[in-house]
Each structure stands twice: as structure tokens, then as C-alpha cells.
């Protein structure tokens, strides 16, 4: 599974403060105030809080968030593209797909 270099460059080193799923969207809030929203199919993993992003890998509808502690949060997006967006604490767009 290939690394998503662009998204990795944006969120690498950020620590997950909270994860919240609603209406088919998963909102991952980071400690620095930024938020990543992912349009997901099904349930999101619940054990990501406290983890720090090491890398992002993506293939098809699978989006893997590799954490520094060795865990991987595996998300299923609704489609291979157009499912992920990151905004910083000022709501400025940092990444979109």
C-alpha cells in the first residue's frame, strides 16, 4: 500500500485528541486544533485517541493511519477519492481529496 505523501506531510507528528463519527463522516481532532474529516463507510476504529501520526498509506478505499506507537488505524472511505479533508485550527484548508 503506497504512502500518501501529501497527506503524510500535512498531518505527520500530530496527535489525535478526539475522534467523532456522525452522518457518515469521521472527524479526527488533533491536539494542535486541526481537524481531519473522512467520509467513511461503516464504523471507525475507536482506539486512536492519544496516537501520533507517523504516516498515511492509501490504496483504493482503504486509508491507513500509521501511528508512532506501532498501531495502525484502518479506515474505509466511501470512495477512493474525494473523501478526506484537513483544516487547521483557523479553518484554513490544508489538504483535500
Amino acid at each position, binding site marked *: 500500500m503506497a504512502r500518501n505523501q501529501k497527506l503524510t506531510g500535512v498531518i505527520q507528528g500530530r496527535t489525535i485528541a478526539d475522534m467523532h463519527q456522525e452522518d*457518515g463522516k469521521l472527524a479526527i481532532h488533533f491536539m494542535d486544533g486541526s481537524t481531519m474529516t473522512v467520509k467513511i463507510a461503516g464504523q471507525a476504529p475507536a482506539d486512536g485517541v492519544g496516537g501520533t501520526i507517523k504516516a498515511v498509506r492509501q490504496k*483504493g478505499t482503504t486509508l491507513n493511519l500509521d501511528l508512532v506507537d506501532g498501531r495502525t488505524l484502518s479506515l474505509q472511505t466511501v*470512495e477512493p477519492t*474525494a473523501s478526506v479533508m484537513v483544516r487547521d485550527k483557523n*479553518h*484554513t484548508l490544508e*489538504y*483535500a*481529496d
Partner: protein
Amino acid sequence: MKAPLTSVCLVGLGLAMIGSGMACRSAGTVAPPPPPVRTPGPPAVLPEQPAPGTMARNSPPILPDPNLTPGDTLDVTLEDVCTPGYSRKVRHVPIEVKRQVYAEYGIRHHRPGEYEVDHLISLELGGSNSIRNLWPESFETQPWNARVKDALENELHRLVCSRQLDLRTAQQEIATNWIAAYKKYFHTDRPRARDRGRSAPQETAETDTTSEGAAAEGNVQVWVNTRSGKYFRPGMRHYGKTKEGQFMSEAEAIRQGYRAAKGD
């Protein structure tokens, strides 16, 4: 003030919905969106009869099939799309998705520079990378082709960011019929000469079904390094050779914020 835009089903609602059975999407829908499986449509055909004189060839589409490509937008604001460098924040379309686009339009082989996988609603107008917003657009059809649409995209972006045109209106018009939109905003029935580009790209011996863009006059096909943000012209050492990158026209590279590599 930021006014979030919702993802909407933009094109010919009747045509698109009846033909494909796809649900019109909106942000914040309660039910999960349907899987991104497109109903196969007729290969490489026009969704409607073009105006007389709009098509010189029979096979390449000059308008997308609304069943396959109704258009799709990101949840972005006017401020987002009018921020310099916005397009560079958007992920590139994965090659697997591009291949799927070609396949669904029945295009199995094509020469370098013959087509690009185009965002029907352009990135700079908030278009998304969803396959519902992608179609194979020819550089070779005359007079309407990818370069002509590029000119329209630039003009609509200029109008939107100068507050002369509503973003959602621009999205709807380019998605509904980009040729009609061109005629409306450029006040002409035919593309301006400077927008048409050359009719055929440079011939190459190799067939590369993944490369895009055209080495055409005034619109050279360059290789962009999607990691460094630089682009390379033909003949440069890193042209087509960086680990991450893609081909696109030089105009598109500049519009997306890439910088020309020096020396090399």
C-alpha cells in the same frame, strides 16, 4: 464570512438521475453515501446532440456523459478556492482512478497527449477528485477541446474570485454544459483562436496509456514533481523520472502553483 458549500449533484438532474439511478449527494446526509460505482454508460459518446459544427470527430467526447460524470464538488468555500496555491492542496487523482475513467468511457488505448482526465468542475472551482467529476477530455477535437475548456476554467475562476460570479453558479454552468458556458462568458459561438491550441500533439513512438497532456505549441507537456512542487520540461534530466509526479500541460502546472525547475 465563510459559507460552506455542500456537495451537490450538479448536472442535468433529470438526465443524470434517470440514467444512472445515482442519488443526488449533499453534505451532511444521514445515510452513508452510495458506493462509488458508476453505471456503465455507452462508451465515448455524447450525452446529447452537440450543436452543429461543435464536433469534428465522432468518437472522442467533447461533453461528458452525464450518467458517468454529473460533476461533484468538495466542501470548500469561496475563500478556499481563491487562495493562491489552493489546487496544490488537493491530492492528485490516483492512476487507478484515471484508468477506471478511461475504461468506463470505453477508451482502451490512447496516445500520449491525446486525452487528459479532466475535472468537469475544475479544481479551482471547487471540483472534487470523485470519479463522478472526471472524464477523458480530448486535446484533439476541434474546435472544442481540453485547451478551450482550460481557458473557460481560468475565466470562471477569475470571475468568481473577483466576486463577479457566484461560485455555485459557476460550478453548475461548467458542469451542465461547458461549451455553452464558454459561449456565454466569452460572448462567442466558437473558441477564440488562442484557446484552441494545436490540433494534434507531437507524435511519439511509444504508447503510454497513463501519461497526460500534450506537447503542443504554447502548451508543452511537463512533468510535475508532486512532492517538491517543481515541474520539468521535456529534455530535462528529471522529466518523467521523479518518484512522484505526473504529466500535465505547463499551463495547468502553473495554475496549480508548480514552479519551473531551473537548470537541470
